[in-house]
Structures are given as C-alpha cells and as structure tokens.
C-alpha cells in the first residue's frame, strides 16, 4: 500500500486511458496512501507526520498533527493513477477542514473504510450505481441516528470540555470555553499573536470597523491617538464629498439642533471639504466634527457597512447611486449613539441609538443568509457583520516562548474556534467515535435481512466503516481495538473509552461537535459513493499540479 516516494518533481506524462480493474486498484492505492498518512493523527493521542519542505534550501521538515494540513501539503503522488485516488480524497479532507475546522482525519478514515469495503463488494459482482444509491440511503439513517444523540451544550465548563476534546490543550480549552459562552455561535472572535508568553483574552464593548479618520488633524487625544465623542450624532454618505459647500447644510442643521458632536462617515472626502470641516471645528463654539472613511474594500462591503451603521445608530444613509448629495441632508438623516470613537485606522460605536427591534430583525436576516450560504468568503463576511452588531467582540491573544510555538497554537486555536462555533450552534454528541458506533444498530438489521443484495452490502459496508474512527483512535493510543470494543459492549449504555486514562467512562465526558461529525460522515459517504462509480481514468499530457480543492 505504501508509496516509497510520495512527492516528486513535476514530470511530463503521456496521455492515456486506464480501465478497471486496474483503475480501481490504483485509485484505492492512492487513497489508502494518503489516508495512511493522516490516520495516525486521529484522536487525543495524535501522532505526527513530518513533511519535507517544498522550498529549496529549507531543510527542516514541518512536523504536523493536523490531518487537514497534512492533506494540503501532499500535492501529488508518484504514480499518476494512484494520484487520482489521493487527490479525490485530498479534496474531501481539505473541504472538511476548511468548512468545519475539524473532523478531517475522521472523514479520511471513514472514506477509506467505505471505499475499501465497496470495492471488495464490486469485485464480487456488485453494481456500483445501485451500491452508491443504497449507501446514500444508509447515510440518511445514520444521520438521523446522529441527530438523536445530539444535545445542546452551554456554560463555560461544558464548552471548555468540548474545546478540550477538539484541541487537547487544557489552557486553550478553558479560555475558549469562556469566550464561546459569551459570544455564542455568531459573536466575533479575533485570534492574534501576542508578545507575552501566556494566553489571554480581552472583551471589547461596542462595534468597530477597520476604517479611520480622514486626517490625523482630527485626533483630539494625542496620547492615545484617537478622538472620542460623547453623545455624537452621525451623518452617513456613501460617496465622495467633493464640494465644500455641500457640508454647509449639515453644519447648519447641527447648529440649529444644538448638536455638539458630529461624526461624518463618508465614502471619500476632498481636501477642500476636509478643510471646511476643520474650519467648522475652529470657528463654531461648542461644536466638533470628525470625518471617518466608510468601511469596506469594495462596493458591496461598503454598502453592507453603511447599512449596519445606519441600523445601529438610526441614521439614514445618503446613497450616491440614488442621486443623493450631502447638500440634501435633513435632520431625519442623522443617527445617534452614546459614544463614538475613531483613530486613523479604526472607528467604533458604543450604545447606538437605533431601533433595537430593527437591529434584531437585521441580525436575524444576516443569520439566515449565513446559514444558506456555502461560499466561505461570503460566510466570513456575514460572520463578521453579525459579530460586530452583537455589541462586542472577544480577542484571544496567543503568546508563547517562540514564534514557532505561537504560530502552532494560533493555528490550533483557529481550528478549535471554528469547530466550537459549530458545536455551539448545532450541539454535540458522544465523542471518541462512540456516536458513530451507536449508529450501527440502525444499520444492522438491514445489513442482514435487506431484500436487495446491493442494499445489504451498502448497509454492511457502512456498518463496518462506522467503527473505524473509534478503532483508529484506540490504535493510535496503543490499545488493541478489538479488546476495547469488546469491553464497551459489556459496559453501560452510553459509555465511552477514554484513551488518556484507559478507562471506560460516562459518554458525557467525551464529546464531539455534532455538525463536524455529521459533515465528516456525509462527505465521506458521498465521496466514496462517487469514487466507487469510477471505472476509467483518462490522463492528459502533463497534468496540472493539484490545485486547491473547490
């Protein structure tokens, strides 16, 4: 099964076709090669994989214990038929890792078990398409069984336990448990490198955007390099304000309404208009104004940010595309907050005085878009918007004794945080592979008494495969899987095996994110079903190096 030289320099290939059974055997070889590299990383006693660097003159190999990253590093296998199997598996593993942040090794182990079992059945004359169909039906039963085991988790101690089962780092788990207890599934969490040697967390009140003052001359507090206004009003204009005369109506309204602090958020501001505002700051008694650049790197992001600020403050945005101009501003366009602050790079709002009902509806809309979206960049943008509007954010500062350690812990924290979001949002289920083991009972009868041989085979294949993640965890920890499974069969219902203590424990002590486990199983079954239907491999000349999976 193993490849002696899994990585190699790029070569030129001749085109060609490879038919079954050779095609299937080679796909299986490639799949098993990649999964063999990832399988040791499953479980709390994960072993590591050393990956040599692709960069010349960099001799130190990377030592990795994350299945998702290992799969990403394997960009090509030596044999091109085997490479097809490895790259199909790689796409699944990377997708699982990117989308869920965890479960990559689990998905890999499941995929290999299902494919190997399926291929064995096909060799004895089974029908691939029918087998795939029945595998998908058995998947639905298994997912329903996972649903039945799923329960919600709340409270910092329980959440820390979930984090611990993902990252196996007690200190990090404790902090993430507290953070997710506060921010929930949608809150904003920034994970940043720190210069200290410890992990620490910080909570920031209010909403903040990565966009700041147009001019340093508007900074009032020179020590802290920021300006803070109490009880400010807001005017939002999503276009460039060119003409300094256009700011006059806004200033007149401010004076008439006895407004003392004004924050203009604009798409852009000409030097002349800025000079006009600076003059107002100097000339008008009891009045101060600052101008902030509208957040967002492109038109869509900017429109979204203006919408969020408008809802938070109760302001009405002047929209350039609709023909609005700053000279058209009325008092009805003004929004308010308890405090507003800005530096040259950021600005924020604390205690926006928009309608709380509208804010709640707006967040609900964003949440439904988030749940409906599959695009990672769209999801990330929506996540940021929701987190910001929730009224606060958390920052986890990662310190350590070396840059390498900080980078490793930061990567681990990001991966754990991603899986924690899913756990908070969709619940948890028994960990250590037990949730899959518990699903086997719903497949058992059909695997023996199903009318159709393909149906029986599909149920049996999945029945066997669902034990593989637990077997891999026990193996990686140095236990004999058969012995452990036999012990569990005689233990109380709901028990699990803690590989760290070597004892049968209450199942509640070991948990996994339900969303991660369901996604791993779904991805593995669907990918294996698709791979089992491949009869022929067609090679082009000089195939492209594997790209990042979709």
């Amino acid at each position, binding site marked *: 099964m193993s490849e002696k030289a899994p990585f190699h320099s790029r070569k030129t290939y001749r085109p060609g076709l490879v038919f079954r059974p050779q095609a299937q055997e080679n796909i299986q070889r490639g799949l098993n090669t990649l999964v063999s590299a990832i399988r040791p990383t499953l479980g709390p006693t994960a072993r590591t994989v050393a990956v040599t660097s692709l960069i010349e003159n960099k001799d130190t190999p990377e030592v990795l214990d994350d299945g998702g990253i290992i799969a990403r590093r394997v960009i090509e296998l030596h044999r091109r038929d085997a490479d097809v199997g490895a790259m199909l598996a790689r796409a699944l593993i990377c997708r699982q890792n990117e989308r869920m942040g965890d479960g990559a090794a689990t998905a890999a182990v499941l995929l290999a078990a299902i494919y190997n079992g399926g291929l064995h059945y096909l060799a004895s004359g089974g029908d691939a398409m029918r087998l795939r169909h029945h595998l998908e039906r058995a998947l639905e039963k298994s997912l329903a069984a996972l649903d039945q085991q799923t329960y919600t988790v709340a*409270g910092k101690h329980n959440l820390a336990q979930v984090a611990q089962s993902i990252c196996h780092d007690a200190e990090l788990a404790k902090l993430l448990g507290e953070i997710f207890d*506060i921010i*929930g599934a949608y809150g904003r969490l920034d994970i940043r490198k720190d210069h200290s040697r410890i992990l620490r967390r910080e909570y920031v009140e209010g909403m903040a955007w990565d966009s700041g003052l147009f001019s340093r001359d508007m900074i009032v507090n020179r020590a802290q390099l920021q300006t803070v206004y109490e009880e400010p009003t807001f005017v939002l204009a999503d276009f460039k304000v060119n003409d300094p005369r256009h700011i006059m109506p806004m200033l007149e309204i401010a004076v008439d309404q006895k407004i003392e602090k004004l924050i203009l958020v604009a798409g852009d501001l000409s030097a002349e208009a800025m000079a006009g505002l600076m003059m107002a700051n100097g000339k008008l008694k009891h009045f101060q104004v600052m101008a902030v650049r509208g957040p967002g790197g492109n038109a869509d992001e900017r429109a979204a940010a203006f919408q969020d600020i408008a809802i938070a403050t109760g302001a009405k945005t002047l929209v350039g595309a609709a023909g609005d101009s700053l000279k058209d501003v009325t008092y009805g366009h003004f929004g308010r907050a308890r405090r507003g602050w800005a530096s040259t790079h950021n600005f924020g709002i604390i205690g926006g005085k928009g309608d*709380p009902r509208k*804010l*709640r509806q707006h967040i609900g809309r964003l949440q439904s878009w988030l749940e409906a979206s599959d695009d990672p960049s769209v999801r990330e943008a929506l996540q940021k918007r929701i987190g910001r509007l929730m*009224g606060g954010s958390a920052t986890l500062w990662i310190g350590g004794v070396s840059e390498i350690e900080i980078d490793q812990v930061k990567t681990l924290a990001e991966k754990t945080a991603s899986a924690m979001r899913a756990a908070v949002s969709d619940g948890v289920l028994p960990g250590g592979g037990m949730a899959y083991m518990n699903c086997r009972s719903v497949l058992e009868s059909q695997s023996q008494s199903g009318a159709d041989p393909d149906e029986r085979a599909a149920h049996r294949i999945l029945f066997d495969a669902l034990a593989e993640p637990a077997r891999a965890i026990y193996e990686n920890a140095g236990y004999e899987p058969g012995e452990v499974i036999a012990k569990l069969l005689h233990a109380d219902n709901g028990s699990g095996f803690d590989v760290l203590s070597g004892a049968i424990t209450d199942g509640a002590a070991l948990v996994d994110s339900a969303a991660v486990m369901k996604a791993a199983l779904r991805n593995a079954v669907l990918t294996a079903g698709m791979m089992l239907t491949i009869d022929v491999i067609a090679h082009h000349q000089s195939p492209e190096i594997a790209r990042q999976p979709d």
Partner: protein
Amino acid sequence: MRAEAISLEFTGSDETAYALAASPGFAKDGLCFAATSLGLYRSTDGGETWELLRVTEEPLQQMAVTAVALSPASAQDRTLFAAVKGGILRSSDGGDTWFAAKFPAPPPLFTALAISPDFARDGLMLAGTMEDGIFSSTDRGRNWQPWNFGLFDLAVLCLAASPHLGEDETIFAGTDTGLYRSTNGGRAWRECGFPSQFAPVLSLAYAAGKDEMLLLAGTEDNGLFISGDDGASWERTAPDALPGSVNQLQVLCQPDGGGEIYALSDDGVLRSRDAGQNWDTLVEAAVPPTAILIPDCGGKAMFLALTGKGIVKYEV
C-alpha cells in the same frame, strides 16, 4: 388592612420615591431605605421616623437616588448601594459613610440594581441603566464594567437574579423592547421567548410554583406574564385583575412555606396567594404609586410610596 399615618411626608409636590428597600433582618433591626428624587432616606425604627442621608463624596453631591439595594447579608456586613446619576454609591456602615464608584461619561442613569443571593462569596452585582445597558461588578461594587454582549436594547428597566444564581448563573433583564436572559452571570445576554410585542417589561420577580420556580414579568400596558420554564415560554395571567401596567413585583415567602406575590399597578396594590393565578386588591390609590415595600417581617407591614405625598405605612 389598615393605613397608618403617613410614614414619610414629601416636601415638594413633585417629590417622588423611585425605590424602597428593607434589611433582611427588618423584623429585628427595623432598617429600611427610600430612594427619592431628593435623596436617600433611612429609617431605623421600622418606618416610624426617617432621616435624609448626606452624601459628602465629591462630585456626587446630594441628588436624586434612583435605586437602592441591600446586601443579602446586610445584617452582618451593613452594606448597601444607592444609584445616583453617573455613579453608584456604596456604604459599609448602614448608610453613614459612602464611597462612589465612577462610570465612563456620559453619566449613566441607573434604573435597577440586582445583588447576587450569594453576594458574600461572589461579590457579584449588576446595575441596569436607561441608555447604557448593564454594568457589572464582581468585587462588591468597587469597580464596574459594561456587560452588554448580545443585549440589543440598552434601555434596561428591571433586573432579576435567580435565587440559585450560584449554580445556574441565570439573570433576566427587562428592557424597552423585550426580555433578555443571561446564563453566565450577566456576561452575555440572549433574547428569551417573551413575546416582544408586549414589551416594555417594567418588573420581574421569581416565585415558587408547585414544582418549579416561576418567573413573573410585569409589562407597561399588557399586564402580567408567567413562565415556568426559565423564560422559554410565557403565558399571560389574570388579565382582568391586572389589565395594564405592573410597575413592581415583590414576592414574600411565608414561614409556613407558602408565598405571596404583591403587584404594584397604577391603581394600587394587589396580592396573589396562588402563584399569580388569582389576585385580591389590597390598596386602591387615587395617586399613582411609584414603589412598594413589604419587609420580611411575617407580612405584617407594607409601605407604599405616592408621588407628591409621601410614603404610607400599612398594617397588614
């Protein structure tokens, strides 16, 4: 019920009491406080006589006190808190001397104070404000920080801490537009199942039901709501007896294990002895009452604050 003479007579026609509070050991020490628009009054003889307390700490001069709360162990630690505009005052000697905790500008206007039942151990208290959400202190009121994560409505009108806060860490906050629940001691808030069309929520109280703890929520215009599942679902109760505002709720546990719930409406005071299902009118008031206090003395006394008039003491 018999009304005694006016216990505390207000000097101005617009003077009003925002809140009343009594020591848990009222039956023995007769200590009670009245937070009024003129300042904080203290009585040490069960409401017979009152003295206006002086707050000398700069810059918190004599000013309106909008909320007052006593430590659950005040008989021992003599600690109480009074909220004034922009700050919360703390006294550790029953109100003789005060220390001010300051807050970031603009000065918050406090509407409610809630103290952990396990205050001696956790030192936790929360303060609701009109525009700044909720501030929390975990060091017995010395330092405060805003805890508003998930709280979309920063106009907090009332707070209620679970009687089992040490275990369940549950606190409710009634706001202008809904009801929020925290299950982590106030660090983060989530909207609970209260029907938001019936907000604002003016008053909250925990009461013992048959098998579970009940949470009661009094609204500004829509009467009283009860939840038996920790705020997940709500049912309106006694719409005939309480058709409109329920400004304050107070629960009094009887020595025999039973409980009485008192509700302050715009028209007077009502009492329920069956977990909020049926209500008797105890006092009908021509002038809208602003605060009620039933000290823990076996239900023998009741104080009712009336705007522009004073605090009337009743013998139950």
